[in-house]
């Protein structure tokens, strides 16, 4: 992934199928194979997106990688940081599990890891892959990839260089 | 001539054919011998296969200018008797005579060819509430469809069609065309896929003063046919030429459209071209195509239409058949090949290849623009 991207949610098209959760597990599993992920690694890998359903509403709750991320500002150890593509990531070595980030995240997109309760679990945008697995496998276009527009030139977080203004482009990858 | 079973005779099956066409006209109306046209069409010998040839000549019967000159082909003596009785019932027969023909080795068992100069009986056509041309068209169709073995080769005024099964130059010789003098000649050499079985199907196809020679195959024949049937035309011969001729008749004589517009209907401009036109012409051509959609001749063709006042040559919209035109003083030449024009006019003033869908129209000069009907 080279460009600064954002996942856009269109809740009116989420059918509540849960494939985003299924493929999020696959993306973060060792085997990256869907059957092995569920049959062998079922309890070691957790989905970083959580589907919330209140019929007829449903949509995946996931980190929005906010530009002015409250969690990054509030993190007492500096573990929650922004990488060069403006993605909010958690350095699990630095994190002590104080969960100030959970206190601050307005989307409730950070949860406590079930199999390691002193670490938070949040969407990492599958930043090693070309495209987040949840976007790739959403069957109804509820999750799409959009190029991120950087509004203000002068103010972005932790000493990243000034960005040029880019137009919002719908890249249907 | 080859024996052809009844069910394969032209008229019962459609016989596609490639052909050669040629046309020469003197725009001042000065007559010239048929020798020229024969010379021109004979050059394109390998465009035909000896199964069809024919000519149309205008201005050949000045002395009977106001009579309808019927050229009749009879396969049997009995057909002549029936036809002549039919003529007595419906016409005043001015003159009836054998057409002067001569023996040509390649022309085998020709039908007997007669010529009549007729005037429709006034009581007859008023009774049917028809105009004179309407009456003639109705009567010709009756003869062709009801009197077996009799075929009206042409029925116009001061014009005639000379056609049969054979190479065009042999047919020309058979009908002694050198002896005729006309100001407008068209010729046709046919390459039908199978033998027509009789002379009626050969070109040119005539209706009143219209004569049409056609090289090509009209893919839209099925549509044009049903469209013509709505207006009462009966396509007995199932040939493209017949359909083209009837369409000209419908558009020009009955719907009174100017020649250019009629040609535009048969080879309509593409929607892309229409969209690029300014407002007025765009609306005109759009509505023209809406009304006359089914009159569009689709598929490859180059057609030469003859009538007393003009000669028109037209190609299909994407020019899938050859057509060349040339001018030398008052003379206008159109043909399938440039060579066939150079053969009879070594250094024309102007020679050009008309674009697809754009008609070449040569008119007799003193006839002013306003005329409409072919009668």
């Amino acid at each position, binding site marked *: 992934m080279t460009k600064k991207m954002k996942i856009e949610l269109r809740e*009116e*098209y*989420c*059918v*509540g*199928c*849960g*494939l985003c*959760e*299924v493929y999020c597990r696959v993306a973060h599993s060792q085997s990256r194979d*869907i*059957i092995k992920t*569920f*049959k062998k690694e079922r309890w070691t890998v957790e989905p970083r997106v959580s589907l919330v*359903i209140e019929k*007829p509403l449903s949509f995946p709750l996931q980190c929005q990688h906010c530009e002015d991320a409250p969690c990054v500002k509030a993190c007492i150890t500096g573990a929650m940081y922004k990488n060069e593509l403006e993605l909010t990531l958690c350095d699990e070595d630095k994190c002590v599990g104080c969960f100030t980030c959970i206190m601050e995240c307005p989307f409730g997109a950070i949860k406590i890891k079930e199999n390691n309760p002193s670490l938070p679990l949040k969407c990492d945008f599958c930043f090693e892959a070309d495209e987040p697995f949840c976007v790739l496998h959403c*069957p*109804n*276009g*509820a999750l799409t990839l959009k190029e991120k527009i950087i509004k203000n030139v002068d103010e972005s977080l932790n000493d990243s260089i000034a960005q040029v203004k880019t137009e919002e482009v719908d890249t249907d990858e | 001539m080859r024996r052809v079973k009844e069910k394969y005779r032209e008229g019962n099956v*459609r016989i596609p*054919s*490639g052909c050669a066409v040629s046309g020469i006209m003197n725009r001042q109306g000065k007559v010239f011998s048929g020798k020229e046209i024969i010379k021109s069409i004979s050059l394109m010998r390998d465009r035909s296969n000896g199964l069809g040839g024919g000519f149309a000549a205008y201005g050949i019967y000045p002395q009977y200018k106001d009579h309808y000159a019927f050229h009749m082909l009879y396969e049997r003596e009995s057909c002549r008797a029936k036809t002549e009785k039919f003529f007595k019932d419906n016409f005043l027969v001015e003159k009836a005579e054998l057409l002067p023909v001569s023996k040509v080795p390649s022309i085998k068992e020709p039908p007997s060819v007669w010529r009549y100069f007729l005037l429709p009986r006034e009581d007859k056509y008023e009774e049917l509430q028809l105009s004179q041309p309407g009456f003639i068209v109705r009567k010709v169709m009756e003869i062709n469809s009801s009197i077996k073995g009799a075929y009206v080769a042409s029925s116009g005024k001061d014009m005639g069609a000379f056609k049969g099964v054979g190479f065009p130059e042999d047919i020309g010789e058979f009908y002694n065309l050198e002896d005729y003098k006309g100001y407008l000649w068209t010729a046709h050499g046919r390459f039908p896929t199978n033998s027509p079985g009789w002379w009626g199907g050969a070109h040119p196809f005539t209706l009143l003063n219209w004569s049409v020679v056609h090289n090509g*195959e009209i*893919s*839209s*024949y*099925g*549509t*044009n046919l*049903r*469209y013509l*049937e*709505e*207006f009462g035309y009966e396509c007995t011969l199932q040939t493209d030429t017949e359909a083209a001729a009837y369409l000209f008749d419908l558009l020009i004589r*009955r*719907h009174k*459209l*100017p020649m250019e*517009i009629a040609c535009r209907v048969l080879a*309509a401009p*593409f*929607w*892309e071209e229409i969209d690029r036109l300014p407002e007025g012409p765009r*609306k*005109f051509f759009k*509505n*023209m*195509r*809406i*009304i006359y*959609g*089914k009159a*569009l001749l*689709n*598929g*490859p063709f180059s057609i030469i239409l003859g009538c007393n006042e003009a000669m028109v040559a037209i190609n299909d*919209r*994407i020019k*899938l058949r050859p057509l060349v035109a040339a001018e030398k003083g008052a003379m206008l030449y159109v043909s399938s090949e440039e060579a066939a024009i150079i053969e009879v006019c070594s250094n024309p003033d102007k020679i050009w290849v008309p674009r697809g869908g754009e008609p070449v129209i040569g008119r007799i000069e003193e006839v002013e623009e306003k005329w409409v009907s072919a009668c």
Partner: protein
Amino acid sequence: MGFSMLAPEFIIERNRDRCIDCRVCEKQCSMEAHYYDPDEEKVYSREEKCINCHRCISLCPTRALCIKENPQEFKRNANWSRNSIREIQKQAQTGGILLSGMGNPKPFPIYWDNILLNASQVTNPSIDPLREPMELKTFLGRKPKKLELNQDGSLKTEVPPQLELSMPVMFTAMSFGSISLNASTALAMAAKETDICYNTGEGGLHESLYSYGNWTIIQVASGRFGVYQDYLEAGSGIEIKIGQGAKPGIGGHLPGEKVGEEVASTRMIPKGTDALSPAPHHDIYSIEDLRQLIYALKESTRYKKPVSVKIAAVHNVAAIASGIARAGADIITIDGIRGGTGAAPTRIRDSVGIPVEFALAAVDERLKEEGIRNQVSVVAAGSIRNSGDIVKAVALGADAVYIGTAALVAMGCHLCRKCYTGKCNWGIATQDPWLTKRLNPEIAAERLSNLIIGWDHEFKEMMGGMGINAIESLKGNRHMLRGIGLTNRELEVLGIKLAGE
């Protein structure tokens, strides 16, 4: 009484090696045919609820599911087929009218498949659509008999308003109410995208779709649902629905549950009430009544819109069509027996009406004989499944065709024929918000446009092959058709020769 003689129609095979118990199928099945057992932590199936709509099969990430017709066989009986027995069991259990959706599935011969197309060889060249212009532009409406010019050569004849289509296809009448708003929006968007028209059906026009007016044909049916002045002026054409191919002679029935907030306000009927459109228009009991309605509609829209009349293909269709043309209709739509429907009594759907191929040939012939064929447009409908069917329909005399089932399948319908339940798993024939959002109009519109564009290219290839570069030259061009496997009488009625002739 829990007992039912009806064995499950389908069996669900779950390949345990592939099933990862991710519960996607459970979440997606609106019939609740899958359920999760928390103790076993496994997903199981209730086969009696399965209607084989393929929703679970399509969304299962590991393709672990396969649905088969229940191999349970009755003792072989040529007279009593499995279906006839089950229908009696159902009716004996419910005492109601057997309802079903979509088109008639009976194995009647499909005449499209018995008609072959021509191609140019040697005597004339086929035209390559990649290099030469290929014109499919179609105008539907009344056409003057001839063109008249003023003295100065300018146009004198006034051509009545026409429906201009980029190609001879339109989306047929599927009312908002029987299909979801998302589906109607998708049809509207696709019609605009490909510059053809879609028909609103008898459910009125939802206010969000008024902007698609240029690509809309609004329908006036016997129920007059949602018909008022702005509605009449909204579309670019008006269609009077007399009949529908799947259910000739009877009206429409939209069950009350499907009449939610939006449907009720669009149809101007109280929420939750059954929307019954009566069998005949109660103001059209004869042909002259139809003329009155046609001219009433024309007057109210100041003669700016072509008026179409849609009839089911019945035995006397040729005479009826001729009468309709003489009554002032500009377009005649003929809907064949295999046409689809949201809900219709099974008996009527399976046995009333005639195939559209015959109806179309007969109407085209009769109108030609009457000398008025070129003055009106004829539209064929009733199971047009591919671009080949369209070419054959146009060659038989149609000016354009309506597609319904094909459009639904493009949007995701899997022909499970349970539209009347209102629980369509693909979000098409339902008003339940939990289900309607499964149809993303943008995706559905793109799929519809792809279908139309695909057919457009195929149509041009076939037409070019025949040496024709404008659709006008294909209309009624029966010389381009040959029959195969048909009796002489069938060929005669269709007006085409046998292959080889």
